[in-house]
């Protein structure tokens, strides 16, 4: 029978078992995985492209540090830690909510209406819809960079630092998720807002992956206390490495990543809800 494969995919489970959130999530994610693999060649070249992109950024950073011997008061290995933490956080955020980047496309094509007439939150459907998985290449490279930095950066570990090193990539991922969410929500008001929104997401990644001390003072403050990009990697790195921060980013801000992530996510979720409400209020 032609249809035996899909039918069998649920084998082993009790056919009468109620559908839990976990079962649903598994189905959605596996559908996404299989969609990706439908274009195997394109998927592999995308992964390779993303690794190459990460590598280019790394080379850029290396070129700077190699020529000035210290970048924002950091050695190469220390810079690599900032870069690694920021890259892992960004890659995770992008993987989860990168789809909101093309929100204006989703709105314009009418796909949003299809999502709205299903009994699931739109955000969950977006997070598990098609095309971000190829960005896994970026994550692989980021993890490699982070591992290398942790090996070479001469860190004197204590339990607090270890805890911070574990929290930081996750809090950073949440900060980037929130930025992506905000960027998506913004496109409900500014239909051509993709480039503007990218200034916050990709711009935020750029700032996050370099030593904050190299930034101009007002920019330090803006990217620490308004858009918490330096809290993603630089500030926690100061704590982990036992360094003092510049005037705009004191070392104690290293512990602000998680609270900032919680606050920013909350705000951006509210903005997202307002955006969906705006859409149902105004129409396409």
């Amino acid at each position, binding site marked *: 029978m*032609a*249809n035996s*494969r*899909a*039918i069998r*995919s*649920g084998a082993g*489970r009790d*056919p*009468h*078992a*109620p*559908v839990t959130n976990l*079962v*649903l999530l598994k*189905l*959605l994610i596996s*559908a996404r995985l*299989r*969609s990706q693999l*439908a*274009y195997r060649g394109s998927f592999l070249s995308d992964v390779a492209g993303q690794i190459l992109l990460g590598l280019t950024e790394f080379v850029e950073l290396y070129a700077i540090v190699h020529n000035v011997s210290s970048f924002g008061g950091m050695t190469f290995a220390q810079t690599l830690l900032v870069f690694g933490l920021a890259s892992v956080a960004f890659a995770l955020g992008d993987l989860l909510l990168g789809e909101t980047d093309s929100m204006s496309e989703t709105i314009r*094509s*009418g*796909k949003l*209406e*299809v999502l*709205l*007439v*299903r*009994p*699931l*939150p739109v955000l969950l459907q977006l997070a598990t819809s*098609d095309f971000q998985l190829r960005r896994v290449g970026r994550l692989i490279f980021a993890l490699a960079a982070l591992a290398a930095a942790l090996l070479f950066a001469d860190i004197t570990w204590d339990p607090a630092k270890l805890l911070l090193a574990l929290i930081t990539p996750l809090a950073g991922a949440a900060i980037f998720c929130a930025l992506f969410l905000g960027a998506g929500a913004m496109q409900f008001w500014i239909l051509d807002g993709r480039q503007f929104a990218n200034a916050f997401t990709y711009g935020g990644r750029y700032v996050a992956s370099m030593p904050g001390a190299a930034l101009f003072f007002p920019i330090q403050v803006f990217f620490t206390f308004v858009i918490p990009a330096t809290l993603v990697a630089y500030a926690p790195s100061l704590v982990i490495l036992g360094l003092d921060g510049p005037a705009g980013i004191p070392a104690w801000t290293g512990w602000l990543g998680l609270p900032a992530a919680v606050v920013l996510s909350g705000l951006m979720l509210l903005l997202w809800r307002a955006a969906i409400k705006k859409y*149902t*209020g*105004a*129409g396409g």
Partner: protein
Amino acid sequence: MPIIEVEELSREFQVMEPAGRFRRRKKTVHAVRGIDFSVEPGEAVGYIGANGAGKSTTIKMLTGVLVPSSGRVSVCGFNPVPQRKALARKIGVVFGQRSQLWWDLPLQDSYPILGAMHRMPEADWKPRFQELAEQMDLGEFLTTPVRQLSLGQRMRGEVAAALLHRPDLIILDEPTIGLDMISKEKLRQFLDAERRENGTTLLLTTHDMSDIQRLCQRVLVVDDGAIAYDGPLTGLADVAGAVRTMVVDLTAPVHSADLLSLPDGAVHQGIEAEGIRHSVSFDPSKLSAATVLAAISSTAEVADLSLHEPDIEHLVRELYGSARR
């Protein structure tokens, strides 16, 4: 209790319109103005009107995609926008131009996901899926990725997807647009059977008069945001004077209309191709196509013929004209 209840429903949009070189002025467009109707469970209603008449706006308000500017909507006992997710479990929606299937996956892979979204255990959705697949003849292309399906195949898949969770109401926006005759007919047969067997309420918008004739006992005509007609299709034809046109090609030319015998009530409309092609209009409620053809055949040999249904846009125009007078 009605499954759809709409009272004094209105929707307006603010659009910006250029005023001078740089300035823009706000302008209010009334897409839907104070419509009232209700639909009982098990009814089949055709919702028709010209492009821009307010059909899609109404459908968006019924499905919870759009908030009304004023008035009241209740669908399956829910207030659509605030209770959107609860409503989504009770209704099925097919947007003719948009897909709700997983584009890159084989068609059959969409159904387990949709079943889970509606929290249906496997024992619940699978028999339903097999039933739908059989009735809609999905078997031969279940393993084909959705993006490779023909429009007719995909549309059958879409309708099956919208019906998987056994909704009380299915709303179809232009379901037959772009389909060939056979696909259209299959879809109509299926929808009709679904309504008869499961009591599913049907609301569809269409430009195709035969969709309405085959499926709907009741027609709502919307024009310029207001309901211009609400009643049976036969009544619509009476009001608007719907006529069918038969075009016959004869084997030998007949140069005068008088030489062709026609039954009472049929009107000769014109001669083309030097007497070969004749068109004859008649009221389908009074005369059958067979009677007209038999009469013509008695005087001339017919080589070919085609039948033209009354154009829905034309009907609506006529109707709106007469409503205004």
